[in-house]
Each structure stands twice: as C-alpha cells, then as structure tokens.
C-alpha cells in the first residue's frame, strides 16, 4: 500500500502543519492538537467544540470558523482525541457563554468527551453535550454500542454553529443541535476498504465484485454484503432505508457524501439517482450538498444523509459560514 506520508506516527501532526500553512484563519496548536478559529473567544457567543479521530477530513478541523465550530480536536487516525485536548480547546474558545461539545456516538468519543466535560466544569466552564447518532445501518441498538454518528454531524455543526453566531444562549444552541440530530438519518455504502497508516493495508477484506451496504466511517460493516450494484440500485436501497426510519413531512437537506476515494464524477451521478428516488417518494429537497465531507481515508463509496428542516433550521443552514471545508455567504 503506497501512501503520501513520512511515517505513520507523524501523519496527524504533519497534516496539521500543512493545514496551518493553508488556512491563516485558523490557529493550530500542532503539539496539543487543537484547531481554533483565529478570532476566538468571541465575546458573548456560545462556543462549539467537536472532535474525533483523524481520517475523516474535512471533518472536524475543516469545519472550524465563523458560522460553524469554534474549535476542533483531531485524535490519532480513527482514534478519539483525549480529554486534555478537549479541555484545552474549550478553555481557548469559551467567552463565558458556555461550550457545546458535539460528540459522535462512538464509545471512545463518548468516554473522552464525558471526562473532558467534567474537567472543564471543574475549571468553571459551562458545558453542554449533544450526541450525534444518525446511522440507520445500525439496527439493533440494544446489542450494539448504538447508532453511529456520521453525516448528520455536518448538519449539527453548521446549524448549531449558526445559532451560536446569532448569540443564542447555550440551552437554545444545545436544543437546536439535538433537533437537527433527531431529524437526520444516514446510510453509507463501501465499494472498497480503507487503509490506516498504522496498519498500512486495507482494514477489512472486501472482494472486488462486492459492496458493503451500511458501512460505517471507520469501515465498520453494516447490514449486508451484495454483489456490486449500479448507482441507481444503490440509491434506491440507501434512500429507502433512510426513509424507512425518517418519514419527512417537511423539506429535507440532502448530503451525498464521498468516503474519500470516490470521484466527484461518480458522486454527482449518484446524486442524480438519489434525487430521482426522493422525487419518486414525494420528498421535497431544500438544499443539496455533494462532495467529500465526512470521509474514511481512502475508502471508495458514499453515504446519503437526509435532514428534515423547519423554517428555523433552514434559515440557520443558509446562514453565512466560512471554514476550510464549507463556505458560503461571507
């Protein structure tokens, strides 16, 4: 497996140094692994802090900036960050209005953010947490760690970030973040496995003629394996699984997300099929985003996230944002 890296041990630090050079709007503490918007703390504004394993770029560091996250903590590849990073980030961005931790539902992220919340509160920082768990591929939550957090994270961070930028108080920002999560569902498919730098080879075995339906963003298997399907068949399957769990009465935001190694040519083609299925099912689309936003290193494949929005959520979605990975209106 060839990778454009030096050694596995410095992959995250090297990426952060490069990110700092490319994005002068960000303050990046490479040693402590904290990415902060340069103008933080913003007086009177609730701060949003998120983080998770590296390897999902632009999530989360690429979503730091006005209108979205105040800070992000990248962990090692596919490994949650440690509480020290989160506390450091919270202290750097808290203006006194409190901090919302946006946590994806993975055991490691949950445990570390829980510990960080306690430590931050010991330092006098008011902390609220929202857990993102949108992946409908995980069916039997009683016997698993529960639904994973995937594409909806982008919607939670963007919409709650806009609410925070408006000066809304912590309880309000937290409630909006929760509402976004409750109204969002995702489903992913993998056409190939990803390779972590530490292992240097594919983390699971997916024969070339098969695809994994319901894959997670670390290559965790989902519902089933099938012989390769067409883009149209995959869209039917994925959208129907999502709609089986979320029956939207309002318009939806659509995220057709690449896992890292699927070209835009294929993603746009897949989006055409997703839009066709949604139209056939009578679902109204308010906005569509196509691209690599919540990736899984070099995995080929895509996920579909639908997020039902009311007027307030749509207004906040459309509000200006200026980050490395998402940018409009400013």
């Amino acid at each position: 497996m060839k990778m454009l890296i030096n050694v596995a041990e410095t992959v995250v630090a090297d990426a952060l140094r490069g990110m700092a050079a490319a994005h002068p709007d960000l303050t990046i503490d490479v040693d402590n692994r904290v990415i902060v918007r340069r103008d933080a703390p913003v007086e009177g504004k609730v701060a949003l802090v998120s983080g998770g394993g590296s390897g999902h770029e632009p999530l989360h560091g690429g979503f730091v900036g006005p209108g979205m996250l105040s800070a992000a903590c990248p962990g090692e590849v596919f490994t949650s960050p440690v509480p020290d990073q989160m506390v450091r980030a919270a202290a750097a961005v808290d203006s006194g209005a409190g901090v919302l931790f946006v946590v994806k539902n993975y055991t490691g992220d949950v445990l570390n953010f829980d510990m960080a919340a306690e430590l931050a509160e010991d330092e006098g920082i008011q902390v609220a947490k929202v857990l993102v768990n949108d992946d409908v591929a995980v069916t039997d939550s009683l016997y698993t760690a529960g639904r994973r957090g995937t594409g909806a994270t982008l919607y939670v961070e963007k919409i709650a970030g806009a609410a925070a930028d408006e000066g809304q108080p912590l309880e309000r920002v937290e409630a909006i973040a929760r509402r976004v999560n409750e109204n969002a569902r995702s489903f992913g498919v993998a056409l190939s496995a990803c390779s972590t730098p530490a292992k240097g080879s594919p983390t699971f075995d997916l024969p070339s003629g098969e695809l994994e339906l319901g894959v997670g963003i670390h290559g965790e298997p989902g519902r089933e394996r099938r012989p390769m399907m067409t883009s149209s068949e995959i869209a039917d399957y994925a959208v129907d699984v999502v709609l089986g769990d979320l029956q939207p009465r309002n318009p939806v935001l659509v995220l057709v997300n690449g896992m890292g190694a699927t070209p835009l040519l294929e993603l746009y083609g897949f989006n055409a099929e997703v839009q066709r299925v949604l139209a056939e099912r009578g679902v109204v689309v308010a906005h569509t985003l196509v691209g690599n936003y919540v990736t899984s290193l070099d995995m080929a494949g895509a996920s579909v996230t639908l997020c039902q929005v009311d007027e307030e959520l749509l207004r906040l979605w459309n509000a200006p944002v200026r980050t490395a990975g998402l940018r409009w209106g400013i």
Partner: protein
Amino acid sequence: MLDAAFFRHWLTSAAALVDREAQRLTELDSPIGDADHGSNLQRGFAAVVATLEKDAPATPGAVLTLAGRQLISTVGGASGPLYGTLLRRTGKALGDAPEVSEQEFADALRAGVDAVSALGGAAHGDKTMLDALVPAVDALSESFDAARAAADEGALATTPLQARKGRASYLGERSIGHQDPGATSSALLFDALAQTAEAGRG
C-alpha cells in the same frame, strides 16, 4: 508486601510487552475494530514509563493513579479512558499506604475492574477487556500466576463470542470467530504482573 517499586516494575514490563505485541494487537483489531489498538496502547504505555521515571511516585497508589491519568491523556479511543480508569481507580483504592498486601491489591484491582465495567457499560461475556479482567481478578487472590492463566484463558474464550460493546458490536454475528483485542491486551497486563512477581521473588 508490594511497594511502589513493584508497581513501577509491573507497568514497565507491561509497556515492554505491549511494545512487543503492538503489531499483533493491531492485527486483531483490524477485522473487528479499526486497526489501532496496538499503536494506541504502545503510545500510552511509553508515556507511562516516561512519566514514572520523571516523577517517581512514592506509594503504590500514587504510581497507579499517575499511570492511569497518563493513559487517559495519551491513548484516546475507548481504551484510553477504560485502561486509565482501571489503573486510576485501583490506585485510589490503595490510598496512601507505602506498601500493600497481595490481598489488598486484589481488592483494589476489583474496584478498578468494577469502575471499568460501570464506565463502559459492559459486563463479562460482552467480548471486551472485561472478559480477561474479571476472571483474572477472581484468580488473583490465589496467585499472580493463576491470574495470568485466567486472563489468557478469558482472552482466548472471547473468540466464539458475539461483541455487544464498542466498535466490534457493529459486526454483529460477523464478530464471532475473532479474538477480542482488548481482552488480549488485558491479558498482557497480567502476564507482566506475573513476570514482575516472579522476578521479585528471585
């Protein structure tokens, strides 16, 4: 009686074992987790050794508490908080005593294992590190060697189980047939413990 030096030796041997077995742990973590268990623990235990050399805590409780804090600060993932909590809670249960008996250590370690169970919400049989920790602690009152054997056996016994916690749980039935990497690394801790006891007794 066991003193601070005994616990420093334990953790240093554990670090050496984790270092030696890191690749294997990562391989075990690859089909059912995310292929980083070995490298994460390697980083954490190396930091533990470094901090114990620098600070040289004087009591068993202080050695374990400091080591646990260091794991929480460096490992990440689920294993950082879980192993960190195991050592930290064990250390806290030992208090300030300059030396502890084997039975006191066994009781403290049980408190640590209970804390791991509470934090992760897992129980024996869920195909996690507890499958090695619980039988090992049960056997610890007997001897360090018995604890090592029980931990090994517990780790091996995870192979036919279906995972119910952590990332492996997403595999459902497909997690069957793979030995749990967390139980395997927990068995390394007890291997190191038995080695330390053997060395101490000459």
